[in-house]
């Protein structure tokens, strides 16, 4: 466990350095770090004004947003897998993606594309995501009396309905299809400090709640009835965990679009490395998810520079082989 935590921390630091240093404008680590310190009043930057702007206004907010999004999606995926006792659960299970997709598409298609989009798209994506989860929760068993499988089925139904409406809106406005499509694929390209400010409180609060739920999720691994007999208020725990995961995911998705794969694969990779206890899986997933998304974003924005690959493509292309390698390594160790 300690070795895995240390390796994850090293990977996180490496991804942070890579995210700041790697790019079409080459800059040394020391000079970039010096520039960052100069922005908080410590020392002087040795970078040119243009380089300093690239670091502080482009790379740094993109890096921080990537860290926040990766951490949130990974920990939300882990908590969903625990609370629903379903290895296929991801943060989009209860309709967050479909609701956000519909909200964002509505903003892009109806509110006017150009000038209004940067304001309205995240706002309506967030509202759409939260409304979708709320409807799922109510349909899935009238709030506190819901059970896991009913909620999952309600999530499938709500997602299907919202996706069909979103597809209709998208197809009915052919001149917006490209913008909608780009949003759906997810990207950190539009990150700025304002976006970071908006997302930060949600992610910090929701990640804290999810990580604190680790012990409860360990108890829930014996099933609902046995958990209740052990003194766990199952429905209350589920409500808190689902609310925190959904709120944090909605905030992230509204800022960066639908980045796939992180929420489902990172907790599984971490589980293979540290075992099945959520008290270990969740905190490690926070750091691993953050490092993984920043690393993927660095690849996405550099491999075809000056154009960018959709980050979801990179998370799948990098994540799937990593998962297979770890799975095989673990199988060999167990044999």
């Amino acid at each position, binding site marked *: 466990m300690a070795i895995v935590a240390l390796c994850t921390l090293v990977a996180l630091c490496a991804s942070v350095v890579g995210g700041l240093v790697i790019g079409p404008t080459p800059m040394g680590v020391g000079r970039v770090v010096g520039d960052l310190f100069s922005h908080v009043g410590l020392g002087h930057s040795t970078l040119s004004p243009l380089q300093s702007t690239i670091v502080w206004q482009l790379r740094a907010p993109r890096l921080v947003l990537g860290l926040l999004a990766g951490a949130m999606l990974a920990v939300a995926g882990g908590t969903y897998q625990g609370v629903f006792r379903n290895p296929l659960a991801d943060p989009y299970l209860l309709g967050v993606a479909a609701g956000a997709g519909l909200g964002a598409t509505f903003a892009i298609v109806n509110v006017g594309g150009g000038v209004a989009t940067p304001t309205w798209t995240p706002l309506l994506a967030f509202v759409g995501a939260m409304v979708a989860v709320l409807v799922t929760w109510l349909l899935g068993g009238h709030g506190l009396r819901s059970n896991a499988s009913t909620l999952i089925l309600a999530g499938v139904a709500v997602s299907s309905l919202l996706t069909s409406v979103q597809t209709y809106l998208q197809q009915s406005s052919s001149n917006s299809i490209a913008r909608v499509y780009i949003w759906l694929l997810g990207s950190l390209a539009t990150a700025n400090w304002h976006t970071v400010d908006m997302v930060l409180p949600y992610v910090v609060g929701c990640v804290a709640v999810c990580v*604190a739920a680790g012990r409860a999720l360990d108890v829930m691994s*014996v099933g609902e009835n046995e958990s209740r007999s052990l003194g766990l208020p199952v429905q209350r725990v589920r409500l808190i965990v689902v609310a925190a995961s959904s709120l944090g995911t909605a905030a992230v998705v509204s800022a960066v679009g639908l980045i796939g794969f992180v929420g489902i694969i990172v907790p599984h990779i971490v589980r293979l490395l540290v075992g099945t206890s959520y008290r270990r899986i969740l905190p490690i997933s926070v750091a691993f998810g953050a490092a993984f998304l920043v690393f993927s974003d660095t690849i996405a924005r550099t491999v075809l520079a000056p154009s960018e690959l959709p980050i979801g493509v990179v998370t799948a292309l990098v994540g799937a082989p990593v998962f297979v390698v770890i799975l095989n390594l673990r199988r060999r160790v167990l044999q």
Partner: protein
Amino acid sequence: MTAVRVRELSVRVGSTLLLDGVSLDIEAGTWCTIVGPNGAGKTTLVESVAGLRRPHAGSISIGGQPLASLSERQRARAVSLVPQHPEVPAGMSVLDYVSLGRTAHHGLFRSASASDRAVVDSVLKRLALDPFAERDVLTLSGGERQRMVLGRALAQSTMVMVLDEPITGLDLRHQMELLELLRTEVNECGLTVVATLHDLTLAGQFADRLVLLDRGRVVLDASAAEVVRAPELGECYGMKLRVVDIDGADVVVPVRS
């Protein structure tokens, strides 16, 4: 002192009445086994006592406290459960599994205290599980696994333990071992046991008292010796039963008609 008091308990699922006006008083430090044919309502009754089913009518009290007035945590400190088909999570160690029994004592946001760890250590020793403490739960045999589930329930340190067919799937030796362990807890620690068993011979040998249930109603509530000899027992099962005395133990034998 009455440990479990059930009054006019009715449980309904949809339009089906699973329990119909059941009343029981179980003294502290005694063992009461619920017997009866399939569909009699045995599991429903013990799940209700464990607080897992909401009654349609009637009430249940544990140690004088109405079950309905207790929070989940308070209930888990009063009644523990050994389910018929326990879920055993892969990758969890025996120590962690038994420690789950302390959840209601230390809560969800505090680590286990020294006294929690002492209780778990004592349970592991009493059930001879300490050599397996670090092993993955899935590597245990059926008998060891069932001892581990019993260990989790004992770690809850409750006044009442509810067991639903705890010896299902165990061979004869492991059945006897588990029931002996439980009997020791009743005799030496004052545990109150409410169990369901299909094996009438073992039920008669280990329990202080048998309650015969049929179609959701109590048919007989008496000492084990009285119930195994009562004609109602065979009538409930719809067959002829004979009781043979072997070395002072009543053995219930079904007879082909």
